[in-house]
């Protein structure tokens, strides 16, 4: 079964090369790309079953033993993330194939879109299975560089402006990450995560805090944790709809995933947990207040994205197995739901010719299907029972209550408030874009629209009467997946809680990398 582990990275990487070669044959290129991601999904599901029923898989690349060579590790958390990411990437890919076919890319195809998309997938998967801090950095760089290309796709003025913000911020976060890798290497003489974990205990506490904060700052920029989240609502909305969807769903979650690894394996101590709780509180509240003030649906969703990152950080900051398990379930829920909402917004944009709720109206009559496809994930994100958003938030609140500090109870209150405000923002979109008639848009006066401001030169999209079946189908599949998170919440949550238990303290992770104890040779590297 170990042979399957590198395939998760190799299949999309080789697929990208093949897709690039097939640049002049768009039909073939699309088929290859879809097949590649479907294959990764299958491998991911097999890995999840194997890992959940048996032992975690560890691959020593090139046969070099653990602290010297690079290790790839698939434990329950990594396998779960690979499966969810592969499913979401596949759905968004089908969506963009549908959009491309409908908009006539056959004449002017962007031949680099599909290869770049696959390389993005490679980076995401590589980051999930990396057992080595530097390999994690490389995974991040792979996904970031391809995301630079995707966010500036087409090179319009608006996208370059937004792209530059995104690129510069990402570069800074990468430099933080690389510098902290260098300093960690200087301190403990290794970049293997399991070995760092065992050696870090011997480092003076003040040095530990410094390294810990450096690493967290790098990851927090990527995960869009307040106050390092300012770049996200500026840059995401201008990209093409499928690109925004996959960025919103996956890229920030890779940052959150790295924060989980940092907090549970590298620095398992509770020193920074109160600080993380405060940061989680601010992320939730500030994010959702931004969302309430937005008129543009894409920007609104970007702000809710920031706000809900706060929930995941809350789960991590509790420092308990229950908290981590709840955070893992919430990540899975949020990847699916946030992506679905952005895809549905892509459909709204096609149907209504805009993403501003000032200008949209009458969509319920025009397209009841889109209305349903938006309404279900909107309720889901807002945390209405019985959807997965409710289950995730309930689990987080229970874990917080179990921890029992004053701060934890404040966070429960804030979390409930944030859910209501999210619901308010999304229901307002529903009311204005779907519920009000198309004839009411001119001169519409409402409390809902006061204090909303937006750019005078909003993005204009050509209205189109028809919405391709493929786009509807893939969005529908994502909605179904979101509902399935509720239907199969039992088994899913038990996987998440087993993953959470594995992550309670670093010993499980260290043992799977070094089953025969941590080797002591080679420690002279830095002394």
């Amino acid at each position: 079964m170990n042979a399957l582990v590198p395939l998760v990275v190799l299949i999309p990487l080789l697929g990208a090369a093949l897709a690039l070669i097939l640049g002049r044959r768009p039909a073939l290129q699309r088929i290859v790309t879809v097949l590649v991601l479907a294959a990764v999904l299958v491998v991911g599901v097999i890995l999840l079953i194997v890992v959940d029923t048996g032992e975690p898989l560890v691959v020593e690349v090139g046969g070099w033993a653990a602290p010297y060579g690079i290790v790839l590790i698939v434990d329950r958390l990594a396998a779960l993330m690979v499966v969810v990411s592969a499913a979401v990437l596949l759905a968004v890919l089908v969506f963009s194939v549908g959009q491309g076919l409908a908009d006539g890319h056959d004449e002017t195809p962007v031949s680099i879109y599909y290869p770049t998309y696959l390389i993005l997938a490679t980076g995401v998967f590589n980051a999930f299975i990396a057992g080595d801090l530097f390999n994690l950095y490389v995974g991040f760089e792979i996904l970031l560089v391809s995301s630079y290309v995707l966010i500036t796709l087409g090179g319009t003025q608006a996208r370059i402006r937004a792209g530059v913000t995104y690129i510069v911020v990402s570069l800074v976060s990468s430099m933080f990450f690389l510098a902290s890798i260098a300093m960690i290497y200087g301190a403990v003489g290794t970049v293997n995560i399991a070995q760092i974990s065992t050696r870090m205990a011997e480092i003076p506490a003040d040095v530990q805090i410094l390294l810990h904060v450096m690493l967290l700052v790098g990851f927090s920029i990527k995960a869009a944790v307040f106050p390092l989240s300012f770049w996200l609502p500026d840059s995401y909305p201008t990209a093409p709809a499928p690109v925004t969807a996959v960025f919103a769903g996956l890229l920030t979650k890779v940052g959150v995933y790295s924060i989980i690894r940092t907090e549970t394996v590298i620095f398992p101590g509770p020193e920074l947990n109160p600080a993380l709780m405060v940061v989680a509180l601010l992320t939730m509240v500030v994010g959702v207040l931004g969302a309430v003030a937005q008129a543009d649906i894409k920007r609104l969703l970007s702000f809710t994205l920031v706000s809900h990152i706060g929930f995941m950080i809350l789960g991590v900051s509790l420092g308990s197995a229950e908290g981590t398990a709840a955070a893992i379930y919430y990540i899975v829920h949020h990847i699916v739901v946030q992506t679905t909402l952005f895809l549905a917004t892509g459909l709204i944009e096609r149907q209504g010719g805009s993403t501003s709720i000032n200008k949209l109206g009458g969509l319920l009559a025009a397209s009841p299907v889109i209305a349903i496809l938006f309404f279900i994930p909107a309720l889901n994100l807002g945390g209405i029972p019985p959807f997965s958003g409710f289950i995730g938030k309930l689990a987080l609140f229970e874990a917080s209550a179990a921890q029992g500090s004053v701060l934890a109870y404040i966070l429960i209150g804030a979390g409930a408030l944030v859910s209501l405000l999210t619901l308010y923002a999304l229901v307002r979109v529903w009311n204005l874009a779907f519920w009000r008639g198309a004839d009411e848009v001119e001169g519409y006066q409402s409390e809902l629209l006061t204090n909303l401001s937006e750019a005078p030169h909003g993005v204009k999209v050509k209205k189109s009467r028809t919405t391709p079946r493929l786009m509807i189908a893939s969005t529908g599949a994502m909605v179904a997946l979101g509902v399935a998170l509720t239907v199969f919440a039992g088994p899913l949550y038990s996987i998440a809680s087993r993953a959470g238990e594995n992550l309670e303290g670093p010993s499980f992770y260290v043992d799977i990398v070094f089953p025969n104890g941590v080797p002591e040779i080679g420690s002279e590297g830095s002394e």
Partner: protein
Amino acid sequence: MSVSLVLLIVMAVLYACGIYLMLERSMTRVLLGFLLVGNATNLLIIIMAGQSGVAPIVEDGVTVDEMTDPLPQALILTAIVITFAVSAFLLALIYRSWRIEQDDDVDDDEDDVAMRLGDTGVPVEQTDAASVDTEFGIRAEAAITEARNLEEQDELAAAEAAGLSEHPQNDDKQNVDNQKTEKGAAE
């Protein structure tokens, strides 16, 4: 672990200059700043490798203590390659930005400005010129119609130069170069 003071000072200066440049609005300066910060980080990795020594090749008479730590060098090589790729991409982006707007400054976000000014009016309709679709392939040409036409400019310059001096072939060569890069950008 002993550290070379010179390397440390160079690293600090590179970081300081690099961060200063990255805070500028001009994208070219941001690129230069990024290069400096990237190199400063590479120096940091070298510093973290500790005492330098002989090449890390196992042979008779050389003990482990005399060798340089080889791993940081491998890390730096990877980091250099990544920095190189990102710089190439940034250069392409700067060129594209200059083709569209004739400048490489990063503007404020329109929505943020509207929010700050409290401008709640219904959005003004856009003029055609600003909303030309530049998204794909051939249509990308449409977006840069209002950009400065390089060929025309070169022809003008060539005409002027022809009046003043006797070297028109240089300008012809430049013309060809411009066409080449333009083709590259379109792809």
